[in-house]
């Protein structure tokens, strides 16, 4: 008699899947009354992070690694109110389908207390997490609308519109008749940037926004866009140029002998990632709207906060370079996260969100002097900035710390 392979195989696969299912079950709560939400107990808080560990955007893995290193160090120092934070990184290779699989696994199978992550794929799990009422904490994203109107989503990076606003205001103070140009990544970041710039210009001076150009992440050459800006009579440029483009643009500016007032986004003002490869001479005089310390800046060589950060990274994330500003960004997010976990008035997800929103004048040793974190509009904590200028060696503060909430940029 002939064995029918097809149907038998189907049945076998289904049985196998069914069998796989039973493996990861269990791990329930010890005391449902004291701990109505999963992922937290007397001894543990479970946090999941989904981000690219592999793939073309694996360079940004240092964000999650920085956060994990901070929590690992904190655990070795006794944890948070006796609880250790189990911080697990799930690789999604920046593929939203994988992010969704990771996050559902974290929430439904691994029963985590909160989720974190980085980048656009986090948009694809935002609805799911909000429906499941799971906190999506300190996502690395600068898109304005990421956490607006989402009850359980909080972003870590500042709203890029605020940087556009402050840069514009600064330029107008220096040169009231400036013609402003923008070059930014061809996604929401461009329109968000422009929104902030237009707000600072107001309806009366809207004409001073002379030209907006965008670039594609896959094309490192932005010389055509820069020429376009130059030919539009632009005198000041507000830029969000990441990686290769951030490196090539200053060189090209030097080549064509064009030196407008030049602003770079805080996230793309890293000495090791952008300034050094671009040539320190070529970026001398650049401005930025910063809020965190650059771990590679000589200004912080003996800074206690940065020294401690370097030690933690060296010990707990040895394959990450301490000079990587994204690692510092993740580490700082971990600090603010831990602060909120410490201040929760009950061990619930709602209490965590409340603690984050009630963050008040929190100082971190990884942020620029005078910059404090406050819970506020749009599910963010960063509203204070230090405008800085690169003097050819270091970033130097220009003026005092400014608070965007005191302007009309924040609704």
């Amino acid at each position, binding site marked *: 008699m002939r064995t029918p*392979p*097809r149907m038998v195989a*189907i049945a076998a696969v289904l049985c196998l899947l069914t069998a796989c299912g039973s493996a990861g079950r269990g791990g329930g709560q010890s005391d449902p009354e004291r701990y109505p939400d999963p992922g937290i107990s007397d001894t543990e808080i479970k946090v999941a992070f989904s981000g690219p560990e592999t793939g073309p955007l694996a360079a940004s893995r240092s964000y999650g690694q920085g956060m994990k290193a901070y929590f690992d160090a904190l655990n070795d120092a006794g944890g948070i109110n006796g609880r250790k934070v189990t911080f697990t990184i799930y690789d999604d290779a920046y593929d*939203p389908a*994988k992010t*969704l699989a990771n996050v559902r696994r974290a929430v439904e199978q691994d029963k985590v207390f909160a989720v974190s992550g980085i980048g656009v794929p986090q948009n694809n*799990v935002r609805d799911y997490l909000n429906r499941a009422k799971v906190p999506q904490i300190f996502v690395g994203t600068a898109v304005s609308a990421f956490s607006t109107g989402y009850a359980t989503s909080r972003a870590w990076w500042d709203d890029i519109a605020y940087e556009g606003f402050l840069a514009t205001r600064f330029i107008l103070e220096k040169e009231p008749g400036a013609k402003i140009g923008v070059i930014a990544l061809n*996604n929401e970041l461009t329109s968000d940037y422009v929104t902030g710039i237009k707000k600072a210009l107001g309806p009366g001076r809207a004409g001073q926004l002379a030209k907006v150009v965008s670039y594609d992440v896959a094309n490192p050459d932005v010389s055509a866009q820069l020429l376009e800006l130059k030919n539009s009579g632009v005198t000041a440029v507000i830029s969000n140029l990441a990686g290769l483009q951030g490196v090539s643009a200053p060189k090209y500016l030097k080549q064509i002998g064009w030196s407008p007032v030049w602003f770079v986004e805080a996230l793309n003002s890293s000495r090791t990632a952008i300034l050094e490869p671009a040539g320190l001479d070529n970026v001398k005089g650049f401005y930025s709207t910063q809020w965190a310390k650059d771990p590679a800046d000589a200004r912080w060589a003996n800074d206690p906060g940065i020294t401690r950060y370097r030690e933690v990274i060296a010990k707990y994330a040895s394959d990450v370079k301490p000079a990587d500003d994204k690692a510092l960004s993740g580490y700082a997010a971990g600090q603010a996260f831990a602060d909120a976990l410490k201040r929760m008035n009950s061990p619930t997800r709602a209490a965590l969100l409340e603690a984050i929103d009630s963050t008040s004048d929190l100082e971190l040793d990884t942020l620029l002097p005078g910059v404090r974190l406050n819970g506020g509009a749009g599910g963010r904590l960063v509203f204070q900035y230090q405008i800085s200028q690169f003097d050819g060696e270091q970033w130097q503060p220009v003026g005092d710390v400014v608070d965007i909430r005191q302007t009309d940029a924040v609704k």
Partner: protein
Amino acid sequence: MGKRRSPLTYLAGAGGLLVAGAFPFLYSDFYVFHVTIVLIYGIAILGLVLLTGLTGTISIGHGAIFGIGAYGCAITMDRLGLPYPLALCVSTALGALVGLALGIPSLRLRGIYLGLVTLALSLVFPPLLMRFSGLTGGASGYSLPPVDSPVGALTISQWFYLVTVVIGLIAVLVLQNLKHSARGRALQAIRRSEPLAAAMGVSVGRERIVVFVLSAAYAALAGGLFALVAGAISPDAFTFNLSANLLVGAVVGGVASPVGALLGGALISFVPAVTATLPRSLPQYAFAAAVLLVLYLRPDGLASLPDAVKPLIRRWRRTRSAGPAADSTVDQNAAEARPASGPGDDAAPQQSLPPAHVRK
């Protein structure tokens, strides 16, 4: 096609259906969701099984067609307010249209050149989504309006699982019917030799286009289901990687059978999911190792695994029933060895036999 099926086939089929039906009620929504995704990839890979398995044409563009289905579903639901069953139909129709557009170059292009045309589609699709951000939501993508389960007793994950199972079954039945129909035989003739098929009166061009249309419709339907189940989509989900993964899934699973499609779907969604928390780069190594292992050991794909086991079982049986019965066992072997040697790819070995053998 008049092949006699043994009672065991029906038993296994019924058992499979029973397990498939009972599964969502035995396991948490997470597993149900995960298996739904496997099935969805399986349906998309079925499209490739159709294309590659039947006509020998390779497509590296099915990830983009999958994406077109997903966006078609999301946009018609959100912008036009269509209910999701209709949105799925729109997705499928969109996919069929793209298949038609791809089928036309397939009249003139062959092999690697046609592959390049489909590759172009998968490369250009994500940038196009960014370009028309007013319609597609740009880099952040689209959130679909939440769908409620129409049956109170079922969660939405369970509901979509069952919907996917039913659609998957229909997809398999359509494929099997096509394969064993006159058209299926015509397609196999084309795969073997186009001039010969044409000489026998097969309209090669028309058949190629029909297969492209059907194959793309499968991929787009799967994409629509994916959008519904995922709840949110963005361009990063439909890059060249997805096209490559679907093709890898088809080849590793076995390009010639529905079971292969299911196994391929499981491979491309399970391996990354299971290995996601392993230390850096290990998931990629694990995936690559799994793919290489299968290709080295079972070039016909995972679905041909039973054929590898069968001789072992036979040998085992023979040693047990050694003696007078040995003669009849050998006879049986001769009869069953051929048709079984490639579930789905039955045409190839059969036709390589002397005609008399096939007719029997």
